[in-house]
């Protein structure tokens, strides 16, 4: 369904009327607010909870969808199913309440993780997450995607860190869920439902999260090989060893010759880190401690490897099935750059030349991953790929519950129509 230019102009004017013209993204800047290759009618930047409600109400009245976006680092691959406006959260920013002694912070959804991290670092604390492009992500985006990154096994995922949320549901209800205390079982855990719901149940306005003291030492060990197979034994030893490292990621450089690097991050008190290293690595292992000048670069690769490409898929299985999972991914996407989270059994693989990828190869990959009990999702893709291949394979035996929940929290179908659980 296309909308006339006149009605789009009047929508933009109405948004400007609600929020002020400075809170509406100029038309010529809209290409950078695309979602799954689809251009929004407008992008609005509400600055208060009330303004979020007004944008949702206006969109509902106009019959257009609303896609909430934070730092636009991980907007998802699916195009909305109809005309839509983007609700950008960048003006819902700022630290609202930071009590270092409580190890908690409450901040607006639009604050970037880099800004938040700088505030926390002043007090020797941090939020231990490292999904791709973490610094540019917003707190709200972290909540909406639920993406933990490789630190998740050791520290927990956003679902474990988020203590409380203020969200606005699709039909404009403002829900203040959870709180800002470490343990809270008062009522059903709607916070968990919201975390990772990708803007389909509510717009995250602010979040309270639990923090951790920064480790005294943060060490990165690495080992490279001409082929990932040479590192699988070592990876398995790390994953099943007596110490849980902060993260362990196998990087596969499929687009540049097929070499591989295993990167293991160990954190803790200085006295413990060396002992952990010795306990974690088999005798005679070729792992070496990275010189300081290489640490930042490899740490960035651990986080972002493969995620920059125009086609990015994510495959999961049990950690013990990682060799089979990597075989399957390597066969389907031979020139992909993959980052395998050794502890979690998850692989992200990006392909620089999506034109070369056959849809059938992706279908076969999904079947093979499914046979391992895992799932395959598409983080990013050109629209042509997604025409024949849905970004998410529905969870077979609980899908109806998800759809019904969505209907309760967004009865009008305003939020992210046609995306995620549907």
């Amino acid at each position: 369904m296309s909308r006339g230019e006149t009605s789009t102009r009047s929508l933009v004017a109405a948004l400007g009327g609600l929020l002020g013209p400075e809170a509406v993204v100029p038309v010529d800047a809209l290409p950078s607010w695309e979602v799954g290759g689809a251009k929004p009618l407008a992008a609005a930047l509400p600055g208060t909870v009330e303004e979020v409600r007004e944008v949702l109400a206006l969109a509902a009245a106009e019959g257009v969808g609303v896609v909430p976006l934070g730092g636009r680092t991980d907007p998802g691959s699916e195009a909305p199913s109809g005309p839509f406006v983007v609700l950008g959260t960048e003006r819902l920013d700022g630290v609202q309440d930071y009590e270092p002694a409580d190890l908690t912070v409450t901040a607006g959804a639009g604050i970037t993780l880099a800004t938040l991290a700088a505030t926390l670092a002043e007090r020797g604390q941090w939020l231990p997450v490292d999904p791709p492009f973490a610094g540019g992500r917003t707190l709200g985006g972290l909540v909406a995607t639920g993406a933990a990154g490789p630190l998740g096994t050791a520290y927990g995922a956003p679902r474990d860190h988020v203590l409380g949320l203020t969200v606005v549901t699709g039909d404009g209800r403002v829900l203040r869920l959870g709180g800002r205390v470490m343990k809270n079982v008062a009522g059903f855990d709607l916070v968990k439902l919201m975390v990772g719901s990708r803007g389909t149940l509510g717009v995250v306005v602010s979040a309270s999260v639990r923090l951790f003291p920064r480790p005294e030492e943060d060490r990165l060990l690495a080992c490279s090989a001409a082929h990932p197979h040479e590192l699988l034994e070592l990876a398995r030893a790390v994953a099943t060893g007596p110490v849980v490292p902060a993260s362990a990621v196998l990087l596969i450089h499929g687009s540049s010759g097929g070499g591989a690097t295993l990167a293991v991050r160990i954190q803790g008190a200085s006295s413990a880190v060396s002992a952990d290293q010795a306990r974690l690595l088999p005798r005679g292992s070729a792992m070496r401690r990275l010189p300081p000048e290489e640490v930042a670069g490899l740490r960035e690769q651990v986080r972002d490897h493969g995620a920059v490409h125009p086609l990015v898929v994510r495959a999961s299985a049990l950690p013990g099935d990682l060799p089979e999972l990597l075989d399957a991914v390597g066969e389907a996407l031979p020139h992909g750059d993959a980052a395998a989270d050794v502890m979690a059994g998850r692989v992200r693989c990006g392909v620089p030349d999506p034109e070369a990828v056959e849809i059938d190869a992706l279908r076969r990959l999904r079947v093979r991953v499914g046979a391992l009990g895992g799932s395959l999702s598409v983080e990013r893709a050109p629209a042509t790929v997604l025409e024949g291949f849905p970004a998410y394979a529905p969870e077979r035996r609980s899908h109806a519950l998800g759809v019904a929940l969505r209907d309760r929290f967004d009865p009008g179908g305003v939020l992210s129509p046609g995306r995620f659980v549907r």
Partner: protein
Amino acid sequence: MTQPLSDALQRRLRGIVGETHVVTDPDRLLVYESDGLTAYRWLPRAVVLPADTDECAAVMRVLHGEGIPMVPRGAGTGLSGGALAPEGAVVVGTARMARILSLDPVNRVARLQPGVVNARLSEAARPHGLYYAPDPSSQTACTVGGNVAENSGGPHCLKYGVTSRYITGLTVVLPHGEVVELGGASRDPEAAYDLVGLFVGSEGCFGLATEVEVRLLPLPEGVRTLLAIFHTLEDAARAVTAVVGAGLLPAALEIMDNAAIRAVEASVFAAGYPVDAGAALVVEFDGTEAGLDADAQRAEALCLEQGAREVRRATSASERDALWKGRKKAFGAFGRLAPDLIVQDATVPRTKLTSVLHEIMDIGRRYDLTVANVFHAGDGNLHPKLLYDRRNADQLARVEAASMEIMAACVNAGGTITGEHGVGVDKRKYMSLIYGEVELEAMRQAKAVFDPSGLMNPGKVVPDREASP
């Protein structure tokens, strides 16, 4: 008085689970009339004990078809009345679903039936160098299924988090008998709604989990346990803030106040705490051996700085066990002091501990009640224990009034009405202290998705629409 099940219905249920696993004899039903919250006694209409998912689904299908409310029950150790059977309800117990189905040391996951006792899971994992982290104080009795329902905590949550962090997948029977699979360790958690997270802590109101997949952790290489003795409770609370503020992350930080110390020392669980101390603080570190002594020394120094009159170190496993025994069995130790006891449960921001504890003691004095505190100080999770005699109506009324004031004090300090015991029956009346009608309605909506007919553990957690307290 509640109606017994018809003979025909009893026959149908016995046909599913076997003759002896449908309990209708009033004497045998007495076992199920209350849980760990002994102030309430509600006799169920019957108790059905299925052996597996299929039997459970068949039982629930029959009960649903008859419009009979159902209440899931594990070991009945819950402290908020979640397993109490309201008028006309049948209890579906998990006692026969007590097998560990698989334990996979490579992937560090186990799959088990809900009736497995918490401590047994860790015992089974130990030969593989693994354990199950959540350790509620009742862990030798409570079931993992009950822990899932309550999202149970325990003393080691400060470092390791609560039950929800360790549940990776669930097989759930919905009230109408449909079986659904939620999550799974092999699934991509970012590719669907976190229905496992939503289900954990739903207190039996969404369905009955008949299989639980859990994540196991490698056993820590070493442990150091300190016991710091303080003149006052305030000093102990300040020491907690100092330890956390110094960037240390203990596995546990537990405080017992003078009343609790006295109760423990006068009981069979005596652990050698000085009875004249204002408070005892247990500080525990675990992890790689090499780092532990340094952590323990720093914590000891911080405790002394905050006025600890003595810091003891448990040097052997048996000393550590004795020290923990006093803490974990504190609940039982109060049995000597009064016929009845209500354990309150609330969480406050850690920095508000001292002021809230003052308020709690003051409330106790005003209502002329004995209040003792044993709590997870690191999490700010308070457990004021109010002693009473249920036969004394006036005293019971004072306990009720004091409990409400304690909850209000915790909420006013930015806290919540329950940190780990759940809402159940007991705390429904406090829900409106922290949530408005809009949040409560959203919770009702979530429940209705799983339980449209409202037959699953009715009358629990969320107050009814009209009757807000």
